[in-house]
């Protein structure tokens, strides 16, 4: 003989009950992850000591304002150019054969070494000396490399 009823007595879980339950949940997962948590705590302490945490906190708390500021700063023609150049330079690097670059850079480093040695001597080379040095196989190799580079660059400039 049961009349329709609507009242439901929710077991009154006091805020303390709920808190205890939640704390228990947290404690049990803490225990499960003991090793990694302890390590993480050490890292956090180091971050705090070095002031990094403060900084992060500041950034996070003001993230919307900072975002606006950053966008204000970044959304300017000079920055656009900078980023474009950066990406351009990056693309340039991706197109180079590392072996070739290595060879050229190697040569350049030898050249730098040699030239700075000569710089100390402060010797002069006359026109004749220059003509003569063209015949030197080492100098000749550098010059022809440079001329071939100019050829390549010229055709590249035309294509674009």
């Amino acid at each position, binding site marked *: 003989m*049961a009349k*329709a*009823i609507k009242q439901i007595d929710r077991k009154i879980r006091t805020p303390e009950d709920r808190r205890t339950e939640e704390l228990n949940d947290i404690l049990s997962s803490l225990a499960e992850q003991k090793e990694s948590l302890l390590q993480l705590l050490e890292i956090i302490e180091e971050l705090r000591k070095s002031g990094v945490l403060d900084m992060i906190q500041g950034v996070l708390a003001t993230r919307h304002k900072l975002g*606006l500021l950053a966008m204000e700063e970044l959304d300017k023609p000079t920055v656009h150019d900078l980023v474009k150049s950066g990406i351009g330079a990056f693309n340039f690097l991706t197109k180079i054969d590392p072996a070739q670059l290595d060879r050229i850079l190697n040569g350049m480093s030898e050249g730098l070494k040699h030239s700075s040695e000569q710089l100390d001597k402060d010797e002069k080379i006359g026109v004749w000396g220059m003509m003569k040095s063209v015949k030197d196989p080492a100098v000749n190799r550098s010059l022809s490399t440079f001329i071939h580079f100019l050829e390549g660059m010229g055709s590249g400039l035309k294509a674009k």
Partner: protein
Amino acid sequence: MADDKITINGDSYSFNEGETILETVRNLEVYVPGICSTQPDLGIGVIQTCDTCYVEVNGEMKRACATKSAPGMQVNTQSGKVKEAQHEAMSRILENHELYCTVCDNNNGNCEVHNAAEYLEIEHQEYDFRPKPYPQDNSHPFYRYEPDQCILCGMCVEACQDLQVSEVLSIDWEREIPRVIWDNDVPIDESSCVSCGHCVSVCPCNALMEKSMLGEAGYMTAIPNDVLEPMINLTKEVEPGYREILTISNIEATMREDRIKRTKTVCTYCGVGCSFEVWTKGRHILKIQPDEKAPVNGISTCVKGKFGWDYVNSEERLTTPLIRKGEKFVEATWEEALTLMAEKMKDLQKTYGNDSIGFIASSKCSNEENYLFQKLARTVFGTNNIDNCSRYCQTPASTGLMRTVGIGGDAGTIKDIESSELVLVVGANPAESHPVLATRIKRAHKLFDQKLLVFDLRENELAHRADMFISPKPGTDLVWLNAITKYIIDKDWHDKDFIEKRVNHFPEFVESLSQYTLEYAEEKTGLSKELLIKVANIIHEAKSMCALWAMGVTQHIGGTDTSTAISNLLLVTGNYGKPGTGGYPLRGHNNVQGASDFGTMPNYLPGYESIEDDAIRAKYEKAWGTKLPKEPGYNNHEVVEAIQDGKVKAMYLFGEEMGLVDSNINYVHTAFEKLDFFVVQDVFFSKTAQFADLVLPAAPSLEKDGTFTNTERRIQRFHKVFEPLGQAKADWEIFQDLANKMGADWNYQHPGEIMEEAASLAPVFAGVSYERLEGWKSQVWPVQHDGTDTPLLYEEEFAFEDGKANLFPVKWSPPYHPGEEYDLHLNNGRILEHFHEGNMTYQSEGITHKVPEPWLEVSPQLAEKRGIKTGSLVRLKSPYGEAEVRVWVTDQVKGNELYFPMHTMVEQSAVNRLTSSYHDTVTHTPNYKEMHVKMEVIEFRGPSPIPDHNHRFGNPQPQAGVEVERKWSRPEFTTIAEFIKRKGFDHGESDQAN
């Protein structure tokens, strides 16, 4: 090279006749972009707006989507010219769409615009992006339109005009900057949009998006606008080329796989059986994403399936067992609840016998759960007192079909309905009650000349579109059905060959029709002889016919007989066993078919095997290791009477709001009050639960695994998305726990094991298995051992011993009438937006925004006579009770006929306070549709029960799809082919860098 082959990029291939080049290359897995052809359900080459599929055909530039493959054709998909053409098309698209993919919520790997831009290696914006001078439209509760991102592909328009056929969307091609508009350009919320979601689902980019996705899907999409806009600008300014942007967005899209879970599920509303993916992030439902691979619905959904899932996360969900203590319920543990239940039930069983307990099953729950519930009732409690809610709706239809053709289910599938020459709808409102199924009829009728005949009291949407809408007197369908059948036979139009070979009892049947002359029919139905002859002619001329019916037929005293008469007509005209034919009782709930299929019926074990058959019972007794009761038990209707008579003392009910949806609920409520022990298991604290002694919290479909069987007899798998909320449990787990408490030793680990057991016992499910139901796969029963299923029944034989169908003579039973003083006919049923009593749909803020409460439809004539208007508050009285509701004056109803939707959880406005306990004479299905009432006016003026922003007050703009010709006739439009010619790529390769 053989002549019948096509050459693509130098290699020759075969192709299917009639297909387009785009279809051919896609079948060969040669990628050609084609943004506006990415949804096969809309048709390949129908839209022709995106132009990204240009290829070279015998040296000429052609749209691959609109050019048919032909023998000897030379196709090049990769030449410089092709690349240039596709590049131009994509550039035109990007003039309308900003690629800020990484901060776009649609960047989920399936963005067609993104993917096409990537494939075409678009590096730079050929034409500057041009925002459109229109603000975002955020007016609709479920989705938004962002014109700036709209590429004007018109897929949304095609979906709305020619698939959903609500005819709301169009593109205004003539204005300076075209855009998609709703109706005649009104805010979306004020339009005739029915919120089905087709447009949003097919949008190939982020122009149309579900609001539940916005700011939620991406890692960086929640950035506020004041930061986001300069960010997009910065990206654009420094843009080194789109390649880098697309790479970053691809990385971001991949990262999203970690947070967005996509799970296939089956809709839990009506019986159409739409399947789709649910995208979730934690417990947040991001969106419902349909897929063209879904066997029933493809990319189609209705408002409930697409947007009506808020109930799963509702605050009002039951999350712990509740035990009645005095005048209130107190929370309990599962252990306490099940111990109490086992003790009480055992006591009552011992004192009053096995049949003192009744079991009511749920057509919202899975096949496996229904199977287990009947096993529980029969083995643990030793009773056949078990039934499900098909008793309230479709048992008469099943019975009518079992009498005539042998199987109580749809004769074919949605494919048959859409391919039929003639669709006859009797007493059904599929556009609102089975919306996705109705789309296929509306589409076939609009585009493919399908004929449509609708018999109904009320001019519902299909009636409005039909070739003929015919409105007989209430409860007289059997008369005109028999009369037309007789007329067809008298005219010698019946299918003699079919009848001779495949049908029994023709002579007796003809004899039984003698009374049903056209004159008699005219007198009883109010339909003129001429009209009936016209209908008979249409039926005679159609080479194939499907008959669809629902509650307008079944919920009558003669429900089974009228269903039988429909099936008789189909037999006489030879409309069974061929594609595009058959009888289709439209099932109302997601699993109303499956609940009965899997044995929650008083007289049937799973697979409709009779409980009274000794051999069959022996099979189950052996498998289950226990004796089974032989006598059929009480059905839903009888159980209420048995409680009133003191024969049934306890009841266990799950997932069924009997306290609101059974007829004559006052009588049902007094029965509930008499129970000694009543257990209600539900997702919500329902009206029925208020009478319970014990309330158990159950899990909805998104929180469990299982299968549903739709109206087509199609078994489909749904998968668990979330863990059950609180302490709620899957229904099957609760049954198992209880059984084990009662001493049974069940050990099902997964619903798949339950299905395995059912398949091993019921021959019609022999080959059903979870392996065969993976992904989008489905099985239409009967399913043989090897997994062969039966989408179309009766091709070889009917389901009787001799393989022949039976014509079954039926007589008209005049409908119940409570007496002259009750002067208005009360029709009742569903509307599009809500479902059943509304415990799920009212949880959706958006749906409630569109329809906050039910209303009473009153004809303009009656309104005038009574001096009432839309908004008036009236009281309806029948001999069984009274209800209060506000009026909507509409010419959908006529004269003294009222229409009262059933969707309310407010008892005071529940239509079933008015309905009676009379019922179908054969199946005991209540005669919900046979009631007359008196109407008293409480308030003449008041607020309209339907808000102005309901789709019913919109202004649809029917047109033939997107009408791309209007785009092509814009003065500045140049075809891509012409553009390429002018640019001078006619000779050889271009030196284009990309």
